């Protein structure tokens, strides 16, 4: 199915996804006649309120929680900041220790880093070469003053899926800490039932699941108490002030409804499998980053030794193919991705990494086209590379 009116293959769905046309249709009236403020008393306002609450119900159904346990935010970044800083502020008299991992999204790491400056103590857990945390490590690090453990469910770069259910159970058994998980990549692809997972808080957003950018949500169990980040008119039960972003909330609700109906795990896993098999059959010296399986459905991360990632992204761009890299050259700080560094597979792997993430609107033809273009460009860039297969300067 062709969603974008451009002749390109979009295979960067872990960065963002196109807005599903069904989501867009649902949003449009709220950008037109139904512009009301849900906090107004009049009919126009009440109409908007109804739309917001219906959307909240849809988000809650997807997560299997109560509607009142959903707080709408501007993004996964805000949801993560809210969960982390909100817990830190609310529980600072109980303890100032937080546990997270080295491969969290930057918004988690930066929020934690800022809290360190405010006198909190953060433990950043190591991961192994496939990106897995050790359950024993968490157990060892839990302390009396640990107030929060925040671990992402599926890594956005290398696709590693952590055993959230098990981790949450251990944290609850051994401590009084809240357990928060960033599961922005997961809806529609994995089980996001917060009751099954046993988490206290969970982050999602719309634009990784075929909804619009600029809208996210935080699931917060009804017994979980955290401080708000935004103070004001008391919207979202005082948890997050600011007039509700009605059209985006409506779109988010629709996106959750579609994700629930349309589990794409099997289809995306088949695409990943075919992609990896074809690439490995046709191209030599390929390193798979993250686990082979199971992993975040649709996510593939591989390094083509001797080929720098940014160069490969831009060469594929010429073929009309959109993918991503964790190479240092593609970042503003000229540092390789912190996730690939944490996996500790060496600089030659980090600089050569390519993330290909297929999604709802990709087809098997897209897989073939990406493999075809990759083979050509990897071959070409290898013919001019100064690096041999060991990552040393070649002769």
């Amino acid at each position, binding site marked *: 199915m062709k969603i974008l009116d451009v002749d390109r293959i979009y295979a960067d769905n872990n960065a963002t996804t196109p807005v599903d046309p069904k989501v867009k249709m649902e949003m449009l009236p709220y950008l037109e006649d139904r512009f009301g403020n849900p906090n107004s008393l009049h009919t126009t306002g009440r109409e908007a309120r109804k739309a917001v609450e219906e959307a909240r119900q849809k988000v809650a159904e997807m997560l299997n929680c109560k509607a009142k346990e959903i707080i709408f935010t501007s993004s996964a970044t805000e949801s993560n900041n809210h969960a982390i800083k909100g817990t830190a502020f609310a529980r600072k008299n109980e303890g100032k220790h937080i546990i997270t991992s080295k491969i969290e999204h930057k918004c988690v790491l930066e929020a934690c880093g800022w809290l360190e400056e405010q006198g909190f103590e953060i433990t950043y857990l190591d991961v192994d070469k496939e990106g897995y945390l050790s359950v024993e490590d968490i157990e060892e690090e839990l302390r009396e003053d640990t107030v929060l453990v925040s671990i992402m469910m599926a890594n956005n770069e290398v696709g590693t899926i952590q055993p959230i259910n098990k981790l949450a159970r251990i944290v609850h058994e051994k401590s009084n800490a809240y357990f928060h998980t960033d599961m922005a990549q997961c809806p529609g692809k994995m089980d996001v039932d917060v009751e099954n997972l046993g988490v206290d808080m969970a982050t999602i957003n719309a634009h990784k699941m075929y909804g619009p950018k600029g809208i996210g949500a935080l699931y917060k169990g009804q017994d979980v108490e955290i401080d708000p980040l935004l103070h004001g008119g008391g919207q979202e039960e005082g948890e997050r002030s600011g007039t509700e972003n009605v059209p985006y909330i409506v779109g988010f609700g629709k996106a959750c409804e579609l994700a629930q109906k349309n589990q794409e795990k099997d289809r995306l896993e088949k695409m990943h499998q075919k992609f990896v098999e074809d690439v490995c059959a046709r191209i030599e010296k390929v390193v798979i980053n993250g686990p082979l399986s199971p992993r975040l459905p649709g996510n593939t991360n591989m390094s083509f030794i001797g080929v720098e990632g940014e160069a490969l992204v831009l060469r594929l761009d010429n073929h009309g193919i959109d993918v991503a890299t964790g190479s240092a050259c593609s970042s503003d*700080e000229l540092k390789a991705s912190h996730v690939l560094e944490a996996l500790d597979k060496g600089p030659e792997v980090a600089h050569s990494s390519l993330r290909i993430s297929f999604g709802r609107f990709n087809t098997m033809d897209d897989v073939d086209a990406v493999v075809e273009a990759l083979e050509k460009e990897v071959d070409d860039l290898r013919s001019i590379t*100064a690096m041999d297969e060991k*990552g040393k300067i070649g002769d």
Partner: protein
Amino acid sequence: MYTEKVMEHFKNPRNMGEIEDPDVTSKVGNPACGDMMNIYLRVGEKNNEKYIEDIKFKTFGCASAIATSSVTTELAMGKTLDEAEEIEEEDIAEELGGLPKIKMHCSNLSANGLHEAIYQYKKKEGMEISEDLERKHKIAQKTLEKTEEMRQEHGLNED
């Protein structure tokens, strides 16, 4: 972010590959920093002056590293060694219509590679090596070791 000329050189690099049996080869950069470059030179002589008869490169690096390598070989081709020694990173960046600030170290590396090749040749042939070339050789050697310093020198510590 890149100029059209950068993209053009990146898509169709000039003088890429190796020279069979080169007079000299230089290597700069290292895998930790994500940029590595080899320069291959064949040196000729006309009017009693040594000149670059052929120059080729192999580069591991981003679009900008490949484009700067390519344009460096173009700038150096046919020049006398003394002239080519004077090709600086600014000349390379300018030839490409500019580089993003964060990518200036790429033009640096290409200049390092060229200077190092000339240094190696002059040393091998027992030719006189200027103070400036000696300094450039030391900078080129540094790129083999530590990348953190290089990153800081050539981009990140600048305002």
